Every structure is written in C-alpha cells, then in structure tokens.
C-alpha cells in the first residue's frame, strides 16, 4: 500500500511514546476508575429517614398518637428528640441540626371523632433541590401508614356493626313476611301491626347505620326509601281498617309490601357482601403488582460498570489525543512533517491507528476485568459490542485530536480534556439518566461519544439487546466527520504562513 511505511512509522512512534509513559496512562485510567469505584461502593442510593424532633402537646410526655403508632413513626423518621418546647425544636431546625420538626395536634382522636381531620404540622429546612422533597415524602408516608392503620381498625368495627344491622334487617324481613301473609288473609289489623313493627325495626336500623358514620350513608338512604314505602302501606291499612268494609280485591298490590321486601332484601344482600370482605380489601380494594422482567437485576456496580467503561474510554482517548498533537505542534515537530514527504492524511491516519489501537487495548482490559473479575455479563452479541467499542474509540480519539489542534497550549489542551470529562460525568447519562435532562443539556449529551457508549454498552451487555442502529450510525458519522475536521485543522496548522 502506497504510504504504508509513512503511516506505520507514525503509528509506531506514537505507540512507543505511549508505552514509554505508562504512568500517564495509568493515571488517566486508574484515577477516574478508582474515584468512581469508591463513589459506587461508598454511596447509598436509598435515602436515610430524616432526623426529626417531635413536638408533643404540653403536659403529654407520650401522647397516644405517638404511643399507638410508634412503629410507623420509627420506620419513617429517625426521632432525634421528643419535646414540648416548639421554640427549641425550631431553633434546632434553623441550625440545620435536624431535618424536620413534627408538631403533633393536642387531641387528634377527638378531632377525628368530631368529623374533622387532625393535622400534624411538619417543618423542614432543606435547600438542596435534589433532596427538598425527601421530608415531605417521608412524612406523607408516615401519614399514609397511620391513616391506613386507622382505616383498618374502623373497617373492622364497621364490619361488626354491619353484621348486627344485617341481623336486624333479617328480622325486619320476617316481620314484613308476616304482614304480607296477614294482608293476604285480609286480616288488616294484624297486617297493620306487623307494618308498624317493621317501621320501628327500620327506625332502629337507621340509628345503627348513623352510628357507622358517613361511609354507611348509601345504606341508610336505601333503608329510608323502604321506610317511606312502609309508611304508605301503613296509611292504606289504616284506611282499610277504619272502613271495616270489604277491601278491594287486590289490596295487597296497593300495599306494595312485596316491593318493599325486595328493596330490603337487596340491602341485606349488599350488607352481607360487605361484611364478608376482609377489612384490608375494604380499605385498599385495588392493588398493583409489579414484576421485573429484566434478565438481570444488577447491583449498583454491575449496572454502572458498562457506563464507567464508556466514560473511561472517552476520557483516556480524549486526554491522550488532546496532548498528542498540541505538544508536537508547539515543540516545532510539525516543521519536520511539513518538510518530509508525509502527507497530513498519512500523519493523521498513523496517529488514529495508534491511539485507537491503544484505546481499544484499554477497553479490552477493562472488559476483561468487568466480565472475569466482576461477573458483569454480556447477554448481547459480542460483535455488536466490539463495533460499539471501536466506534466510541474512533470518535473519542477524533474529539481529542480536534481539541488538540484547537488548543493554543498544552495547558489549554489539558483544560479541554478536563472539560470533556466533566461533560461526560454530567451529560452522558452516567450520573443522571438521559430522560432526566432537558434541552440544551440534552444537545451536549448527544455530542459526547460516551453518551452513545453508555447506552450501547448497557443495552448489549446487561439487556441483551443488539444496540441501537441509529446510535451506531451516528457514532460512525461522527467519527468520519471528526476525521475530516481534524484534517482541515491540521492543514490550517501546517500551512505556510
């Protein structure tokens, strides 16, 4: 191949230089890797319960709310102190020595019994936007847990009360049956007595349902409708008794006792269904069941391992690339290249070959460590993973070269590569998922090779997917574009002034 010797010379020179500087490579590789590993091992993604001071009403050392629901409080909060001194609690909160102050109401159960909600006031003092929702989330959870317990308790009591109401209703039905039989026998007096008995029984049922509270209102309304019909029947029977005359042939139909009975029977059936349901179903009739169908339930390290690989590949490639050309340009080595019969294309190809090979070698070692040393799986195609690795390396090296050709000093090149590292930490989907980013941050994300690497590596390795063809195409196009840009920049930097 014409020019192969020129390209090979540049490649060998670059590789030899890299191998002569193992500390530089180790620092570039092990520095970020150890920091990230330390972060991964030392950080807890599950937030700890907030530390709180509970302010109890004066004179109540341990109020019933705190005593009866101690488990819920302990689960939701780390109670630092229980005090009746609200001023002291507020001062502690202002001093950021606790996360929250919970002020308990003086007599919550009496308030609830009176038909009004009881309120726990929660104060917090968090300025971190990421954690600002933490205290409200935990105390909402606490309130939900206490309410659930109260509901459950009430539901059990109601269930028992409704069972008693059902007994009354069954007796009422029996009375109605007797009234119906008396009417059919044209014994109006007996029929009327039975209807009055039924009215009295339904009155007791209404009282019973009233005691069940607002939840029993629909049942009560149904009973009230039956009582209206019973009163109408009573009026008809009174008129018949007063006339002592032969009533009309079909008096029973005017009494409509059968309709009233059906109404009450359906009520009894409804109460029966209600009382047979467990209280847990009554308070939470709809449940949600989630199932994880991923092939792997990775731990923190396993999930981030492919992302770390993408990040390190870009970082190493960009950093080495950023130094590769600026050093030679500033030292005057470019003057040699201008005089020699080595073209800019050959020079750039030689450098690409060296740095991409070197980056891939590092990628291979990292992959080996992840797979063999840390049991990170590769569920997807090895070829697709290799393709993604090559494209990430190519674009990253190209980015490094472009920065190197733009930089006016080695210090600036280092600054550029540090900025690129910061950019990948924040925008590549490593620290925050991409769907948590908005424009214009998202545009920065898609300029970084590591962004594509994070997604492709995680997809292929952990999800067993082939990896997005669009992402692979964009990386390939980016690599070509960067090569062209580097060529133009190199021409600009080596042209005769």
């Amino acid at each position, binding site marked *: 191949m014409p020019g192969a010797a020129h390209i090979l010379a*540049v490649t060998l020179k670059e590789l030899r230089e890299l191998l002569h500087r193992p500390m530089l490579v180790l620092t570039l590789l092990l520095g970020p890797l150890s920091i990230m590993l330390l972060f991964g091992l030392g950080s807890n993604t599950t937030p700890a319960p907030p530390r709180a001071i509970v302010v109890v009403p004066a004179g109540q050392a341990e109020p019933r709310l705190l005593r009866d629901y101690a488990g819920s409080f302990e689960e939701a909060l780390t109670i630092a102190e229980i005090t009746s001194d609200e001023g002291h609690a507020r001062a502690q909160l202002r001093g950021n020595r606790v996360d929250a102050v919970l002020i308990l109401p003086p007599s919550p159960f009496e308030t609830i019994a009176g038909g009004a909600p009881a309120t726990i006031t929660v104060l917090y003092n968090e300025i971190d936007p990421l954690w600002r929702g933490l205290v409200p989330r935990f105390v909402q959870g606490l309130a939900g847990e206490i309410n659930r317990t109260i509901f459950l308790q009430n539901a059990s009591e109601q269930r028992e009360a409704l069972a008693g109401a059902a007994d009354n209703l069954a007796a009422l039905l029996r009375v109605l049956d007797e009234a119906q039989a008396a009417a059919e026998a044209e014994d109006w007096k007996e029929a009327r007595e039975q209807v009055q008995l039924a009215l009295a029984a339904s009155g007791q049922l209404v009282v019973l349902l009233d005691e069940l509270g607002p939840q029993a209102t629909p049942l009560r309304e149904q009973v009230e409708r039956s009582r209206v019909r019973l009163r109408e029947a009573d009026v008809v029977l009174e008129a018949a008794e007063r006339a002592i005359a032969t009533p009309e042939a079909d008096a029973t139909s005017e009494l409509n006792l059968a309709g009233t009975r059906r109404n009450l029977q359906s009520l009894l059936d409804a109460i029966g269904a209600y009382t047979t349901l467990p209280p847990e179903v009554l308070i939470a009739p709809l449940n949600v069941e989630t199932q994880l169908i991923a092939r792997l339930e990775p731990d923190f390290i396993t999930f981030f391992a492919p992302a770390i690989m993408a990040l390190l590949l870009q970082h190493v490639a960009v950093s080495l690339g950023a130094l590769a050309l600026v050093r030679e340009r500033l030292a005057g080595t470019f003057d040699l290249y201008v005089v020699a019969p080595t073209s800019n294309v050959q020079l750039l190809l030689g450098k690409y070959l060296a740095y991409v090979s070197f980056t891939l070698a590092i990628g291979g070692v990292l992959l080996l460590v992840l797979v063999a040393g840390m049991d990170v799986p590769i569920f997807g195609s090895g070829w697709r993973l290799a393709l993604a690795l090559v494209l990430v390396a190519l674009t990253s090296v190209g980015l490094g070269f472009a920065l190197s050709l733009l930089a006016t000093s080695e210090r600036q090149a280092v600054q550029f590569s540090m900025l690129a590292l910061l950019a990948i930490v924040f925008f590549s989907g490593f620290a925050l998922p991409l769907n948590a980013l908005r424009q214009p941050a998202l545009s920065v994300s898609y300029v970084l090779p590591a962004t594509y690497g994070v997604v492709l590596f995680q997809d292929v390795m952990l999800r067993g997917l082939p990896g997005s063809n669009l992402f692979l195409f964009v990386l390939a196009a980016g690599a070509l574009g960067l090569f062209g840009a580097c060529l133009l920049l190199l021409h600009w930097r080596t042209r005769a002034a």
Partner: protein
Amino acid sequence: MHVRANNTANDQQRAHAPDVAAEADAALVIDAQDVHKHFGASPVLSNLSLQVRAGEIFGLIGPSGSGKTTTIHLLCGHLRPTQGTVLVLGEEPSTFSKAARQAIGYMPQSFILFPDLTVTQNVAFAAGLYGINEWRNRDRIAAVLDLVELTPARKRTARALSGGMQRRLALAAALVHDPTLLFVDEPTANLDPILRAKLWTHFRSLATRGRTLLVTTQYIDEAEYCDRVGLMYNGALIAEGQPEALRHQAFGGDQVDIIVDRLPQGGIDVLLQVAEVRAVEEVQTHRLRVTVDRAERAITGLLDALQATGVAVQSIGQFRPTFDQVFIRLIAQQGAAPPPVGRLQTSDVGGG
C-alpha cells in the same frame, strides 16, 4: 624579525572551497530573489537575495534575531514570502513536490524529536517519515548513528542525552534518508568547541560527497568553515561571498601587521608609497597595520621600504582579522549601528 604565518585549520577549510568557476557551473539549488517577509506590520526580512549551488556549504551568519531562522523557514516552506520569489530545487517551497521533499533534510534549531523514545527509535521514526521501513533498513540507521557517533548511546532515550548528543541525534534524523540538500539551523548553538568542530567536519564530509548544506549560526567565526557566507543583520543580507573575500571586502584588502623598534617622522608616508598599499594605521606604539591588495605580494615591498629608511623591523606578517571584526566593519560600512553585546557570539573553534 619575526614573520608570522596564520597557517591554521582555517586554511585547510579554505582549501576545500570550490573555485569560482566550478561554483558557477554547479546547479543552482536555492535561488531567492528580493525576498521580503513581514509578520503583521513588522518586517523581519528585507530584500533578501541569495543563491546556493549544489555541493557547497553556505553559511548564513548573524546575531540572534537577524532573520536566519526565518530565512530557513522560508526555504523549507514553513513560511511564504510577503514579497519576492523563493525557489528551492526549482520549486516553490510551500508547494514542494514529494520528490523535492524526499531530497531535503531539515535539522531545526531546537530539539524537536521525542524525549521518551530511544536514539534508534527517533531515527527510525525520521526514516519512516521518508518512507524508509525501519526493519528493512537497519543498516542505514546504524550507519547514520555511526556517522554522528551515537552508536554507543543508541538504546538510551533522547531525554537521557546531553545537549550535544541531542544535536547529533537531530542531525542523524535529518540525514537518515540521505538528502541532497540539508537545511541546518544553528547546529552548534551551546555546544562545546570540540563537538562544534566535529559537526563541521561532518558537514564538510557531506559537502565532499556532493550534498548541499545551508547552515545558520550565530557564531560569526564559524564562517571560516563555509564555502560561502551570507552575513545577516536586522533582517538584511549585508554581505555575501567566500569568507576571504568578505574579509577583503570589509577592510579594503589584506592586512599586514608590522612591529618596529621606532617609527621615524614620515615613516607612514614611506609605507604609503609602496605599491599595493592602500592604508596605514598605527594601532599601537611601534605597531602598524597596513592594508594591502595581497599580503603575500606586499610584505617584501614593505620590508624593503622600512629598511631603506633605517627602521628595524621586529616582526611583519599578515594579520587575519576575526570574523567578528569583519562583521562589525561590514555593518559599519552599511551605516548601521553595531549589534549590542550578547547578540554576537564568538566561538572558541573558528580561526582568527
């Protein structure tokens, strides 16, 4: 009476110089005409014209900042002239063909090779830039390292070399592809005298083998090593020619120093009557410096004239002014202020 003869290495160097006729026959390798170069509004080269022919060592000499390196950059194609034309090997440098590049070697002023690579690896890389496969051409690489006497250090990294060895390494890198035209920018700067002499010996051996060298130096007296010299000052080529010719040009002829026991009234006038004599100057008490057309022809006449007036001559001989003196004299002739102290360097190697 003592007749001094300045028969030093300088004479040996001069013996290598091609004569004018042969020079005229040799192919023109570098031809710069009326070249001006400005960096922004600042002129750095003015009206530079020079020709270098095949097989000669052309020394571009002048103090730092005089425009030597800029001239090299123009000739190598790193810079374009603001005005004027430059042809090297018949081509414009900024658009050198591959063949032209293959024929050119360049040794820059500072060490720009790779400190982390070994001596051999650096030379191999330079060879590779010229399409020379390092594995198939190990002998060539070994030979060039031998030439610059770096074979014992071939496995050392360039970082571990002394400044002088780094210069030789740079020279090896510039020579490895056997160029016919070699641009060498300040090769002897900050080197010890022995090493400078060795480098010049290398350059002479290359010229002997038909290579053309354009060498810049701020050591004025290194002009003695060159076949032809261009003296640069403040971006202008103030004189150009063979070293002896420049010396002649600076002082209006050869210089003869005479020490007498006494100088009678009218003694200087007697000397001025001698054919060939152009000027007489009493440089010290009883010491005269006489400017003549050709020293070797004039000495006998001077001696006779002084003896005829009864003056006892203690010594007489040709005085060869140093190139510093030549340079300062030439600058003065141009009506320019002499360079400040420090810009003009004197080596311990060059003659006179």
